[in-house]
């Protein structure tokens, strides 16, 4: 089946720096992607999404980039704050439009 993977299991950044979290996906037919944030003891929460007909989408302090040529997704967090410390997942929507496949997650540590 599909696989969604992350390059770095743990990322440590200094407060105020920008963070980049990467994700590789395998199904070139996937049409929709989401980044989730999971804080300790909580369920994953939606951060930002992007459709396959877009290359870039911006939110508040976050930007998602999609490179369909190499099947790569990234999440950029500007001016990283301690509250950004969490595990971040990417998810891709399969041909079955109700079903998403998740990566194993990257843990972001923000150092004060």
């Amino acid at each position, binding site marked *: *089946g599909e696989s969604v993977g992350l390059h770095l299991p743990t990322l440590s950044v200094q407060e105020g720096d920008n963070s980049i979290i990467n994700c590789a996906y395998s199904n070139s037919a996937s049409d*929709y992607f*989401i980044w*989730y944030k999971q804080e300790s*003891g*909580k*369920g*994953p*929460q*939606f951060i930002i*999404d992007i459709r396959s007909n877009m290359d870039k989408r911006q939110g508040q302090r976050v930007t998602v980039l999609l490179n369909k040529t190499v099947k790569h997704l990234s999440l950029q967090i500007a001016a990283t704050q301690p509250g950004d410390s969490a595990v971040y*997942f990417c*998810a891709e*929507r399969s041909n079955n*439009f*109700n*079903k*998403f496949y*998740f*990566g*194993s*997650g990257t843990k972001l540590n923000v150092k004060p």
Partner: protein
Amino acid sequence: DVKVTQSSRYLVKRTGEKVFLECVQDMDHENMFWYRQDPGLGLRLIYFSYDVKMKEKGDIPEGYSVSREKKERFSLILESASTNQTSMYLCASSSGGGDYGYTFGSGTRLTVV
């Protein structure tokens, strides 16, 4: 605020017990899902449901069953709990089209001893 509510945050059960994990959503979502989350393995789909009384196996259904008698409620059942079912269990729901992905509950951390 829309919610997916899981009945228990922490559970400790004995091997061989029948375990019920309950999930309720208040968004009138058609789709509901049960995942387990283990370190290094990410989220793995156990079962999902697209409608009342309807269920489909996910990637790791062995040892589990589900029930969806009402649209808002999706229950995960461990027929005879085993220690390898110690995990974090996450319930999620989504609208029919899947846009905006899933809304997750806070999870139930189950320990089987």
